[in-house]
């Protein structure tokens, strides 16, 4: 009994503070979450519009597509870009994987036939500023525009203007460069096969 009393005497402030701070954080999260979600949806929509420039609006065609990534399964949403005249302009999906510092979340766009990538935008990353965060830069990201939906490979040197399955790494950020390629290789063909199975694409 004295041990319990000693424990409470020593730690009651910590327990009370943790509870109060928890309530405070829950309140802040609840109050701000709708606005944060709206910002994220706007960012996703803007990113997809930048990738599929012909699209007038986007429709969700497949929700929570299960993509196995090693030990766990990641859920991905797939969108279809539709032109003003109602034609399909391309597809975009959410993909994520482990980066150097934290996970990297991308929105990846493909053409109508799901044969070539139309590029990607970074939705979330905590890669090292000045190094890994260069995966957002054109030098690296433009290599994916027109790249085939096949297994992509990382090249430590080469011509970044040649568009094929070889992606030239960012100098000093090989891990981040490789992480983006792994995300493409994990998601690209699996999303395609799942959409084919669902009859969304041929």
């Amino acid at each position, binding site marked *: 009994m004295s041990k319990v009393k000693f424990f409470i005497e020593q730690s009651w*402030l*910590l327990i009370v*503070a943790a509870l109060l701070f928890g309530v405070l954080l829950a309140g802040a999260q609840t109050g701000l979450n709708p606005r944060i979600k709206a*910002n994220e949806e706007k960012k996703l929509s803007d990113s997809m519009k930048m990738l599929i420039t012909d699209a007038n609006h986007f429709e969700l065609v497949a929700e929570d597509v299960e993509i196995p990534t090693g030990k766990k399964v990641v859920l991905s949403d797939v969108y279809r870009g539709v032109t003003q005249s109602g034609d399909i302009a391309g597809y975009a999906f959410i993909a994520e994987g482990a980066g150097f510092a934290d996970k990297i979340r991308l929105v990846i766009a493909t053409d109508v036939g799901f044969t070539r990538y139309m590029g990607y935008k970074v939705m979330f*990353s905590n890669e090292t500023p000045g190094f890994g965060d260069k995966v957002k830069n054109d030098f690296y990201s433009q290599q994916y525009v027109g790249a085939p939906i096949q297994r992509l490979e990382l090249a430590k040197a080469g011509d970044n203007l040649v568009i094929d399955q070889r992606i030239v790494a960012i100098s000093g950020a090989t891990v981040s460069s490789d992480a983006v390629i792994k995300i493409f290789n994990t998601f690209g063909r699996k999303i395609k096969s799942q959409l084919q199975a669902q009859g969304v694409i041929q």
Partner: protein
Amino acid sequence: MSDISTPALGPTFTAGFWKENPVLRLLLGMCPTLAVTAALKPALTMGCCVIFVLTCSNIVVSLMRNLLKPHLRILMFTLTIATFVTIADLILKAFAADMSAALGPYVPLIIVNCIIICRAEACASKNGLVVSVIDALGMGLGFTMTLCVLAGIREVLSTGKLMEVSVMPSAFVPWAAMGMPVGAFITLGLMLGLVNIIAKKTS
């Protein structure tokens, strides 16, 4: 952990600007100082976040100072600081999403910013509410001012602009290096040298 004597409010407020400036005199908070000062906007945002966290944590630590047990105080400080940093991060994500993305991990990293825990330990845990708030505002504004001066110099020299407004003559050739990490180290080094010279001459 009880009050020793109540410091004067004026000197407490102004200490952060020069005498105990956290960056230029105490060399605290170097990580954000070097990392987010490539431009004025992110530096100002970081400064505002630090003022918010520092003020809130100083208020809470000051209110509970008589209840703190010596071996639990660092844990309590960290818990308090982490709570307010998370709230600052959420507010930024909700109302300044682009700036939140631009600052990246540096807002959550305020948790380990030595300025906050230093003021909790050195001031808030030993003084009343008013002194703690004044100290937080003085230190926070001193930190923000230093970040803004450093960022202003770097932004002008690296882009010829300040807050995206051209301020240099058209013949000015931007120094790209000033926008890179090397520019942060050089500018901070020169500022520290200048402050040391002034401090020596005035002491």
